[in-house]
């Protein structure tokens, strides 16, 4: 388990019956989360690999499509997610110290930054719609009709970013529910490791975007 999770007064994990020790329970939770995160990694890796293959097969069409992506909003959103990882790390650190109020504030800040990311992403989609960059909308003209292969890249962009957005939305929902639980007295004495385990998920969402931004926005310019 992560360093510093033990020691502070009023901080701990309630042992459930099917584990022999709290330490075993903590390790099992971390390992289980990693096993799931790796399935997620393989899911996104397939999409990113497809993007690179499309770049090799249709370089001009992909570059033309990538020029319509909102590079600076993508960069700004990366800053937002890196900052949200910092606030999530803050929540984990304060949970280890047993500083419940500060931890809850950091968790709320993390959820707010995640929501800000989705707002910027929504603006990007809205701008794409107005620029006729949604080739999957059958009744609407597509801006790059002259480069049919660009449809493949643009559709992949929407699949990858909306799937990431879905993970982020789920993460925000879980985080808000957990924040409500964590604000109650005694939470950290029984469930501190929930903050640690959720932190892994949040950092992983950040990691996926850290890969998505260069692969979709940067290398195709």
């Amino acid at each position, binding site marked *: 388990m992560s360093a510093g999770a033990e020691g502070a007064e009023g901080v701990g994990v309630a042992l459930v019956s099917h584990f022999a020790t709290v330490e075993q329970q903590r390790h099992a939770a971390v390992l289980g989360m990693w096993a799931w995160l790796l399935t997620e990694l*393989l899911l996104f890796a397939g999409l990113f690999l497809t993007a690179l293959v499309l770049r090799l097969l249709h370089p001009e069409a992909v570059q033309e499509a990538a020029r319509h992506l909102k590079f600076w909003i993508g960069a700004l959103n990366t800053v937002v997610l*890196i900052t949200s990882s910092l606030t999530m*790390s803050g929540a984990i650190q304060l949970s280890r110290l047993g500083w419940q109020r500060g931890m809850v504030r950091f968790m709320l800040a993390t959820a707010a930054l995640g929501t800000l990311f989705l707002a910027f992403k929504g603006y990007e989609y809205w701008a794409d719609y107005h620029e006729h960059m949604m080739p999957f909308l059958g009744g609407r003209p597509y801006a790059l009709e002259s480069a049919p292969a660009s449809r493949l890249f643009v559709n992949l962009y929407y699949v990858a970013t909306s799937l990431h957005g879905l993970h982020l939305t789920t993460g925000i929902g879980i985080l808000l529910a957990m924040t409500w639980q964590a604000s109650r007295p005694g939470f950290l004495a029984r469930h501190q490791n929930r903050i640690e385990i959720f932190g892994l998920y949040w950092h992983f969402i950040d990691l996926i975007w*850290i*890969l998505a931004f260069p*692969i979709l926005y940067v*290398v195709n310019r």
Partner: protein
Amino acid sequence: MARMSDDERRVLRAHMRVPVLTAGALLGLLGVNVALGATLPFAHVWILELMVATAMVVTILWVSMEVRHEPPLVRLFAGIGFFWVGILFAMTLTDYLTR
């Protein structure tokens, strides 16, 4: 913050040092990638851009996700997961790049 004692401030600073430095490093690396993407200073700049992205991923895994503090089994899981992704990318791209 204003109501915190000096000792509490010291403890908070000690615990937040690594997360703040990590975020700073990630923002710095992002700045490099954004500058490269915006200026395209030389041919095949994408190689450097992907290397910078890889450095960011390793930083998140090793420091933010604290793989360095995990037991060997968790390290093995994390390492093998990315190793398989490496095989997936290497074999597929070898095919397309050598056609």
